[in-house]
Structure formats: structure tokens, C-alpha cells
């Protein structure tokens, strides 16, 4: 079987506009959560908080003509993809162009553009729309824009599974490489859906925390939304070695499952199935895993269910795992979630620092594992998994291993 490695990583979220800044903030335990500034959120019952990207100036990255085509969704994806490609040093000349895939997990779509247009339609009774609405909104826009920006002509599309989109995209890319369809992929996730309409919709599901996000802690009240993108260059070990590329880590395996149960309530069985499959696929024993970047949304249901799933997969080793949710830092970035969290997981492997679970108050009896509360911890990590469990009962887990 072809071994797959990660050679480039890029990220943008509330913690920073590039992967090193994001990772540094994770190790320092910085939270990007605060009051929403992009629109008047005072009427929101849920407190109007989110992990927004701040001080982002798109003109630093894109010229005016290009920018007209780009919803923030695509802007973030392009910024992250450019960083990942630059770091990997890969070029897409010759056959490489068609032997590379672009797969971007997106949970929603270009919501800022969509709501802007609908506001004009229903509120201002506009009879004319800006003509670039469709190409800005469409869910595949980030994947298409990345392929155009880098001249990549291989399989290119969006992968949608709500909060598991990124991890499903990574799994899809890995399978394409293993099948010999492509030798490399630019893969990750993007989301930009902090709009009044979407916030209202989340609020009405009663899952948004009014105070902050405190996964696995007693007193947790729900999730806090975030936004951004993280993108990776993955390729065969052979390709990376031939190029003399710096290898960040091995993408060892992936696991996917569906609960086939409730559309919203999580299932420990489904979550455990995806984790077990990722371990088997990676050829890793449960005892080999040192760190779990948990889905850890901060809802009562997710965190206790995920804990039960961890117990069932890891048995007695569960207590020895360092487990953390980085969502109190970058928020729940939905389709970008798994990709942003992989930045933290790779950081843990490479630097031997486990990012903490911020805002942790005190133990909840239903969450009885080591969640690395509040402060980062030094720990040598040889292998790790990153969990994503989505509404719709869709689960995807990525397993990574340190190289050398």
C-alpha cells in the first residue's frame, strides 16, 4: 500500500492568519472567542459570541478583479492553500497537474454572499442581483478556486458532511492516492458562515453556549461557532522523498461511519466505529495513540457520548490518553473544523506539546478522562487521531504518525 505523508500546511482562523500563528496560539491557550463584530448580534438570545477572523485584509492576498469572485469562504481556502503549497515546495508542472486532486470540505456554502443577496431581495426589494452571486456562493467554489490558482487539473470537488467535512475530504484524498488515481492532493476544509441567518438557525436548535465553549467540563452550555480554513498538501512518501520535501508527518489512516440513527443526537457506537476503523486502517494499536484531538463541541450530549466512545475503543488505555478539544480556541468551524484541528494534532506530534482544552471548570462525572484542562502540556506523541462527528450522524477520523 502507498504510504502518504503531509508536506505542507496552511491555516487561517480566529487565532491567526497562518499555520505557525495558529499553532503558537494553541500552545499558549489563546481563545479567539468574543462578541460578534460583523453584524449587530444584540438581538441574539445566545449571547452573540463567536470565534471570528479579525483584521483580515483580503486586498493583501487578492487583486480587486479576483476578489469580486470570492466569498470569504474561498478567500480563506485560497490563503490556507497558498501557504500549504509554498511550505511543501510542490509545483504542479507537467503530469503533476493532472495527478493531483483538490478536495475541500465545506459544511455550508458562501453564506455571507447569499444572505447579502437575500437581504437585498426581501428587505430592499431589489430587482437586480450582482451577477457573481452564484459563483461566490457555490459549495465547490473553494475547490475550484484552488485548482485555478495553482493550475491543478486532477479530480477536484467539494466534500460535504457538515462538521465532519474536512475529515471526509482528507479520507477521500487518501483513498484516491492509495488507489493510484493521483500522487498528491491539496486537501482540507473551509467555512465562513457567521451570519445572522445562520446564527438564528443554530440558536433555535438550542446548542449555542451563551457564555463560552468549555468541552468536557461541568457547567458546559454548548458550542460556539468559528470560521476559517486549513489546507494541506499530502502526497505519496515516494513523491515527497524524490522531491526532497520536508515531511511534517505521516497520514497513516482514516475511518468513516454513519450512525444511521438520529439526525442530531450523537451515537457512541458510530463514533467508536470510525475511531476503530481509523486505527485498523493505520495499522496502529490503541496503545500506540498518545493524543486525541477530540470533536469536543462543548454540548452536553457530544462530550459525554464521545467519552463513552473513547472508553469503548481504547479500553484501559483511555485513561492514559491526552485528550483535548481545541474548539474553545478557534470555535466550532463546521466544515473547516477537522482541518483546523489537524493543525493542532500535527503540532502535537512535531513539537511534543499537547494543546489544552480551555475554559475547563471542573470534572463532569460523565466525562472522566484526561482532557488536558486549560494549560498546554509537554508530552512526546508518536501517533494521534483527530475526531469529527457531524450532525446527520456522519463520523470521520484521521490518524497521523510522527516520521522518524
Amino acid at each position, binding site marked *: 500500500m502507498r504510504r502518504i505523508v503531509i508536506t505542507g500546511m496552511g491555516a487561517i482562523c480566529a487565532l491567526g492568519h497562518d499555520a505557525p500563528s495558529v499553532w503558537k496560539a494553541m500552545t499558549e491557550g489563546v481563545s479567539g472567542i468574543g462578541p460578534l463584530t460583523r453584524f449587530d448580534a444584540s438581538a441574539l*438570545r445566545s449571547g452573540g459570541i463567536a470565534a471570528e477572523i479579525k483584521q483580515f485584509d483580503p486586498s493583501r492576498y487578492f487583486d480587486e478583479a479576483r476578489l469580486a469572485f470570492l466569498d470569504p469562504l474561498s478567500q480563506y481556502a485560497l490563503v490556507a492553500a497558498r501557504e500549504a503549497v509554498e511550505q511543501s515546495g510542490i509545483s504542479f508542472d507537467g503530469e503533476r497537474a493532472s495527478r493531483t486532486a483538490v478536495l475541500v470540505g465545506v459544511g455550508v456554502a458562501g453564506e455571507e454572499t447569499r444572505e447579502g443577496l437575500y437581504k437585498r431581495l426581501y428587505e430592499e426589494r431589489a430587482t437586480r442581483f450582482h451577477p457573481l452571486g452564484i459563483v461566490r456562493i457555490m459549495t465547490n467554489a473553494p475547490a475550484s478556486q484552488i485548482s485555478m490558482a495553482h493550475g491543478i487539473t486532477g479530480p477536484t470537488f467539494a466534500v460535504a458532511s457538515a462538521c465532519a467535512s474536512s475529515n471526509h475530504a482528507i479520507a477521500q484524498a487518501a483513498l484516491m492516492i492509495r488507489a493510484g488515481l493521483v500522487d498528491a492532493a491539496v486537501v482540507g476544509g473551509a467555512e465562513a458562515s457567521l451570519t445572522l441567518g445562520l446564527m438564528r438557525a443554530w440558536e*433555535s436548535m*438550542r446548542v449555542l453556549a*451563551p457564555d463560552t465553549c468549555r468541552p468536557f467540563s461541568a457547567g458546559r*452550555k*454548548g458550542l460556539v461557532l468559528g470560521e476559517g480554513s486549513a489546507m494541506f498538501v499530502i502526497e505519496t512518501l515516494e513523491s515527497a522523498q524524490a522531491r526532497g520535501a520536508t515531511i511534517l508527518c505521516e497520514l497513516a489512516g482514516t475511518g468513516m461511519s454513519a450512525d444511521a440513527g*438520529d*439526525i*442530531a*443526537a450523537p451515537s457512541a457506537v458510530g463514533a467508536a466505529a470510525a475511531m476503530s476503523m481509523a486505527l485498523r486502517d493505520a495499522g496502529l494499536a490503541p496503545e500506540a495513540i498518545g493524543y486525541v484531538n477530540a470533536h469536543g463541541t462543548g454540548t452536553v450530549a457530544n462530550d459525554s457520548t464521545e467519552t463513552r466512545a473513547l472508553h469503548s475503543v481504547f479500553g484501559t488505555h483511555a485513561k492514559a490518553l491526552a485528550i483535548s478539544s481545541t474548539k474553545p480556541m478557534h470555535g466550532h468551524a463546521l466544515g473547516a473544523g477537522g482541518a483546523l484541528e489537524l493543525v493542532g494534532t500535527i503540532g502535537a506530534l512535531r513539537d511534543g506539546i499537547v494543546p489544552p482544552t480551555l475554559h475547563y471548570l471542573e470534572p463532569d462525572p460523565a466525562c472522566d478522562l484526561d482532557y488536558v484542562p486549560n494549560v498546554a502540556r509537554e508530552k512526546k506523541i508518536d501517533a494521534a487521531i483527530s475526531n469529527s462527528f457531524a450532525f446527520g450522524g456522519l463520523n470521520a477520523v484521521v490518524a497521523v504518525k510522527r516520521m522518524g
Partner: protein
Amino acid sequence: MSNVQQETFDIIAKQAKIELDTIKPESTLKDLGIASLDAIEVIFDIEEHFNINLPNEDTDFDGGTVGQLVEAIERQLALKTSE
């Protein structure tokens, strides 16, 4: 039975497709087989019917009883009248 209680029980019975007389003030929504998004929908129907907002604290689906839910509705209705 107060009108608020009667109307609340009607909404729950309709949403959960259960007989009205199976609902007791001491039942929880969970006891009545109403979980996950179905419970969220019941609360939404109640909010729409009475034109009130029920805070998340008043909607404990696992431990909170229907009687407590009725009290929470009455509190919100009283607040509305006093405004």
C-alpha cells in the same frame, strides 16, 4: 387544569402523537418518548403558540418535568404582561 397547562399538553400530545391523558405534570419529555430534535420542536411550538421565548435553562429535557415547563411558560407570560 389551567388554560396554559391544557394548551401546553395539547401541543405536546400533538407533536409526540400520544394520547392527552398519558401526560402528567410529573412526566418528563423523555418519559413521554420525546427526545433530541423532537423535544426542541415541542419547545418551538410552545414559543410560537404563546409568543414567548423560553431560555435554555427552562428546557431541561432529561430531568425537567412537564409541570416545570408549564411554570416556566407562566413566568414568561407574566413577564410579557408586566412589560
